[in-house]
């Protein structure tokens, strides 16, 4: 190996042996398989829709994990940022398509609209983060909760974007490949950040804010940084959601949905990207799966088991996760493919 270290062949080999490249290749293969199964109708549109929603929640949960799990700032208004992204991108796409038939292909408009939504959400994150990140713990939680509701109420009262009726007639641009690729990119970028010198500054704030400040980390700046990046991806996630279900409605971005994302972060493990990904899938599929399971149960028992029991079972399962795995499914651990090789060394000092 060492001898022909400089040959092009070994360089290429090294490139393809890197975990992140393997991860990318694997995820593209998974994407192609799912698309193939869909074209042969083995996976019906209902399942694809659930996968799409799960992937959007992956984006939301991973970005919230950056704020809550990695930086240790307890934020519970994440859907507020998603609302900004959703309304911004949806307004852009609906207006552009209505008014001017542009020569640009639709997906380029869509990507630009998504980015615009993300940037505006990031800006909102900055505006909200600047005053509120002086607060800690519960106080910060109340503040972010309040801001999340303010954003929702603002959209509820702007007639231009539909007010309480919601923004209707959004084109269905969020296809499975687009959502899939976006969520993979989100995972990779957040992973890059977390395993970098900037990411370690964020981690140090979670670990001990005083010590962090006294080794030269500008804690206020880095807290805002985490907030802005988290909000940016939440905005992208919101935009994808709006173009998936083709409506942007204030109730979609209510407090309960922020809590749902928060639950995914906690159930998956604070400070674990892979945990958030797994939890987003498990909880979305669980919630839908229970619907099917309850229906077949009432068929089996010849006794009506109402849909209201779905949430009871769902909540009970969550309680059990929290009782028996307090630190979440993954704890602070990460699946191997998300850890850069050079960071994945565990010492045993004697």
């Amino acid at each position: 190996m060492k001898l022909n270290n400089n040959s092009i062949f070994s360089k290429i080999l090294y490139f393809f042996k890197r975990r992140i490249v393997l991860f990318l290749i694997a995820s593209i293969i998974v994407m192609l398989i799912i698309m193939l199964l869909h074209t042969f109708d083995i996976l019906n549109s209902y399942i694809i829709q659930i996968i799409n929603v799960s992937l959007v929640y992956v984006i939301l949960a991973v970005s919230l994990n950056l704020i809550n799990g990695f930086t240790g700032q307890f934020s519970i208004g994440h859907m507020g940022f998603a609302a900004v992204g959703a309304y911004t991108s949806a307004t852009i796409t609906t207006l552009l398509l209505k008014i001017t038939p542009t020569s640009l292909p639709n997906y380029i408009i869509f990507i630009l609209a998504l980015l615009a939504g993300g940037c505006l959400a990031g800006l909102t994150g900055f505006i909200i983060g600047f005053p509120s990140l002086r607060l800690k713990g519960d106080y910060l939680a109340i503040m972010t909760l309040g801001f999340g509701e303010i954003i929702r109420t603002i959209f509820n009262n702007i007639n231009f974007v539909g007010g309480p009726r919601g923004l209707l007639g959004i084109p269905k641009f969020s296809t499975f490949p687009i959502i899939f690729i976006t969520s993979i990119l989100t995972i990779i970028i957040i992973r890059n950040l977390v395993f970098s010198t900037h990411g370690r500054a964020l981690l140090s704030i979670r670990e001990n804010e005083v010590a962090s400040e006294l080794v030269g980390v500008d804690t206020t700046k880095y807290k805002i940084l985490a907030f802005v990046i988290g909000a940016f991806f939440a905005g992208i996630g919101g935009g994808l959601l709006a173009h998936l279900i083709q409506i942007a409605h204030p109730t979609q971005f209510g407090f309960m949905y922020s809590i749902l994302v928060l639950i995914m972060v906690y159930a998956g493990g604070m400070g674990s990207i892979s945990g958030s990904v797994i939890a987003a899938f498990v909880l979305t599929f669980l919630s839908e799966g229970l619907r099917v399971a309850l229906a077949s149960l009432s068929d089996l028992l010849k006794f009506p088991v109402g849909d209201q029991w779905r949430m009871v079972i769902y909540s009970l399962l969550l309680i059990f996760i929290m009782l028996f795995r307090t630190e979440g499914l993954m704890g602070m651990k990460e699946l191997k493919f998300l850890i850069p090789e050079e960071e994945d060394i565990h010492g045993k000092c004697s």
Partner: protein
Amino acid sequence: MGSVLKIDKLTHYFGGLRAVYDFNLDLPPHALWGLIGPNGAGKTTIFNLVTGMYNPTEGSINFLGHDIKGKKPYQIVHMGIARTFQNLRIFDSLSVLDNIRIARHYTTQSSKHTHTRDENYTKQFSRTSLFDSLFRTSRYNIVEEQIKEEAYELLKIFKLENCMYDTAKNLPYGMLRKLEIARALATHPSLLLLDEPAAGMNPAEVGNLMELIHFIRDEFNLTILLIEHHMKVVMGICEYIKVIDFGETIAEGKPKEVANNPKVIEAYLGKGE
């Protein structure tokens, strides 16, 4: 060259409680001074005032001729003052290596507060931006390697290099003490404040620590001010000692002079009937 740290008439109140009163200090370069006093005398408060954790009620603090009063803690670190804590403040669930690397982070960023440093200081570090971190550019790899190499060299001095991949909270107490000093050194300070470095150490470890403090002062060309209760350490390594009680300086001088000072004996042991 003038003094490294010059404190003038420093006074600090917590509400009605006078924690520090009229404290003066003129710390020459390359000195190793001690700050002693009974519990609650205000020693740690002085450290907290110097490092910007509290804003002093009155008085001035000058570091290498620059006023640092009212500066934020991280800015003071950028200027070149590092400290350790009486009760450890380690980043528990991160690895030993990460603990050091975090302290080295700010040197990879541009800072307005390094004007106290000499010219070569800023040249020795490669810079990296958030963009490099997010998208793993080649510059990112260069900087990360540089940081890691330097962290390894530093840990080697403290004989912690075998533990660098261990989670910090799994280390024994004595090693954590050393880790905290190493972390402070990773910020490239010119003044090091040690808050009870020997607390909780056994006699053998205390002996090693004394040698270590001497060694790092010469190796890193540091000025050191330390708080210590362990008299063997204070009398053994400090060149000059200030004794404070109830926030006021009651004695100062060479270790031997201080040890025989009746006021000091009274503060520590009480007055005979």
